[in-house]
């Protein structure tokens, strides 16, 4: 992928209007050229993903949540379904 505002827009589903585009592209370029220095860092072949601290488990016990509360915070409901645009 190129560092191309249109391609990135399409991938992240962020469309820019003309006035925004100028400013955001400028901002993107400034930030990217600032960050590019990181590319030259040599990394080892060993895994480098940092494990967050903490313990990670939950017993397999079901607890029901009040689903009506959630639906109340949603819009475009149809017969309890979420009405959404469809893919082509």
């Amino acid at each position, binding site marked *: 992928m190129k560092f191309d505002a249109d391609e990135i827009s399409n*991938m992240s589903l962020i469309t820019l209007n003309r006035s925004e585009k100028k400013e955001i592209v400028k901002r993107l370029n400034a930030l990217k050229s600032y960050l590019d220095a990181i590319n030259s860092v040599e990394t080892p072949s060993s895994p480098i993903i940092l494990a967050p601290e903490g313990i990670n488990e939950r017993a397999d016990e079901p607890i029901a949540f009040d689903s009506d509360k959630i639906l109340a915070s949603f819009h475009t409901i149809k017969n309890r379904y979420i009405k959404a645009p469809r893919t082509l």
Partner: protein
Amino acid sequence: MIGLEVHVQMVSLKSKLFCACPTDYRGKPPNTNICPICTGLPGALPVLNIKAVEEGLKIALALHAEPSTASYFFRKSYFYPDLPKNFQITQYDKAGGVPLAHDGHYTLKNGKTIRIERIHMEEDPGRIYYEGGRGESRFSLVDYNRSGIALVEIVTSPDFTEPEEAREFLELLQKNLDEIGINVSEYEGSVRCDANISYAGGERVEVKNISGATEVEKALRYESVRQRNMATRGVKVRRETRSWDERRRITISSRSKEVEAEYRYMPEEDLPPVSLNQTIIKNIALNMRGSFEDRYRVCSKYGVGEEAAKRLAGDPALYTLFMSITGANEMDASRVGNVLANEFAFVVKKHNNPSLSGDTSSLENIIRAYIRNGDRSRFISAAHSWVSGIPVRAEEYKPKVDIDTLIDETLEKEMKNIGNLEGKRRLDYLMGQILKVSSQLNRKELYIKLQKKLEGLG
């Protein structure tokens, strides 16, 4: 070449993978089985259901796969209406990720081995309905009741050649899952499948979202005919994603997803890595064996005789070997069980508490060779080596070829071909045919025996 990606719902769990919502969503009204986590509300965080890891490992062990020592979750990003966070929490084998288990295998009835590349956990998306059918509705209706249900994805190598092999694999897998307490056959849609299929010269086509074994065979048959027809017409098969329409029995090209191959995987930092130590894995293997009664029932089901079944069920180590050798392959299961309970148990007794942790596929070869050739002394000697942890070479257990039988079989097969051959030419021809089957034979011995046999025939 056909490869499968099988999605299995861990139906034995009571709650979802990352939230406490119940798993009995089937038949519930839409969006009643939801919480902030499985609807991706702002601020909600996933917390791993630790039982899912155990169930996932059970499946991994049943597929003879190697569990990882630690396992990470990743975010796989794509925008889709059934995906509330617009990323799926899954596992990944690249970008620094490690799946739950890797490098397993599974044997089909015809003896063919299907390699399992990896086994990983992930969350099920919600479901989309289209009023009046997919072709008709202008919008989608989304139900998140299923969103977040724990899935295990099993990825095979492209080792299948025929659609019926894929069906058989799925049937055996399903049976095997039931066997270890994940009763998929009781839950509709709990085993779903994506298939990759390509024929000589063509590119790989992925058929998505096929439910169950019979549908897989149908979809693959359709696709193989379609791709071969294209090849005959000189049309090149391009890489694409298609979906299986059960009702119309055809695959349909899906335009939307192929451009979204950029999944932008990244680690899911909200979930600390799962540490999978050996003790946990051993305990799971032990639990999989169930009680004596469970084990006895399984042995009997496989046709192992009463005495032998009792012996296997009474010895967890033997039972584990029995399960991993037979796996889903029921053919010969009763004979394998009998050998393990008798001859093999006899060998084990001669050793002082052996670990029996050697390579099971090598033991499987030794036992199957014994079943074919009945050579007890070779079996005993090879089994001693295996129990002592000494690598066993194929020569030690491969059947010694019985020259007489080979001569008889060849004669019977070639009778009409040798009618107009005389004397030495007849002898040479038969020598050639037999050596083609078994080149290692002692030629002199074969020559003499064959000569005698032909003389006897006159």
